[in-house]
């Protein structure tokens, strides 16, 4: 697992604004950090299909937002809780900044 300060939060924001589903995954784990699911299970919970999710979630894994773990004979996706507070603060600050810019 990379150190908490390891994730490039600028890149996370790029992932967030890339597609609706990518943003949905970030918001979902911010609200539900304890979800441990397979890709198929996560797709069910998000109301999407596994293939679409697979394409969209690669960036989250590459960035270290989500980790893959082996549980029994299945691979599950786990959110990196250690970065939770940092991500939360960053997103809230970034949103405020962009709102200000939009108002200007």
């Amino acid at each position, binding site marked *: 697992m990379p150190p908490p300060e390891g994730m490039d939060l600028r890149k996370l924001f790029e992932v967030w604004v890339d597609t609706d589903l990518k943003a949905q995954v970030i918001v979902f784990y911010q609200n539900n950090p*304890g*979800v441990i699911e397979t890709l198929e299970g996560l797709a069910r*919970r998000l109301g999407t299909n596994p293939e679409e999710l697979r394409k969209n979630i690669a960036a989250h894994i590459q960035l270290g937002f989500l980790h893959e773990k082996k549980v*029994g*004979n299945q691979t599950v996706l786990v959110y990196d809780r250690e970065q939770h507070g940092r991500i939360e603060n960053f997103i809230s600050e970034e949103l405020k900044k962009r709102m200000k810019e939009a108002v200007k």
Partner: protein
Amino acid sequence: MSKTDAPAMPMDANRLSTGVLGLDQMLGGGWARGDANLIAGAPGTGKTTLGLHFLVAGIQAGEPGVFVTFEYLPQLIYRDALKRGWDLQQWEREGKLRVVCTTPDLLLAELAPGKSVLDDAIAEVGARRVVIDSLTAFEATGRPGDKLRDAMSGLFNHLRLKGISVVKTHEIPQIVGPAMRVSEWGLEFLADSVVLLRYVELEGTLQKAINILKFRGGDHDRRFRKYELTAKGLVLAGDFTGIENISGGAARRSFGTRARELV
């Protein structure tokens, strides 16, 4: 932070507060430490709330906990708990609680030899209490009854050996009615105690009744007691004196009560 009303009762070191003073009294001092306790009841009777009471009482007593949910997303558990004044997310940030949302199959699978997803969560916060909400989800895995019982038995023994006190919930589909089975696969036999939450129809009103069906830890109150789900959680609200057929679901004033009223 809203406190549970349980600390008002002096506790034996081998007993654990359920988080509900009235229930602690019914149990003669709370659940036994290290036991696996079952809360069974119809939908909406407060099984999850009672499970949360148990965790909150633990956190207030310095015992971290883990809450396992299958069907409900953590965000809904956080929202509902906050209405009772329990800020679960804050306790997660403080390392006193973990809310885990997964599937029964993943919960039972091994992360590493002898180590599960649940063991990981327990180790993260040093949990002494675990709530599993609910075992009904295991029935949907399609495992036959004997396999389910074996899987459950293995899970509870594993937690018992770690000295973890467990509360598990189970939904009984019947809302009211005379026939009531706790589970189709003998779940009640795997529990050290069984608390039954049920609806009782009394003079045209649906009321809620709590009863201790079984408690290996000692003598206990065998009466049905009224309870309400309030902004503070589950609160006992008197008994059903002079009422009969509560276990049948359609209670009525007993013959003696009616006779006394006629005299």
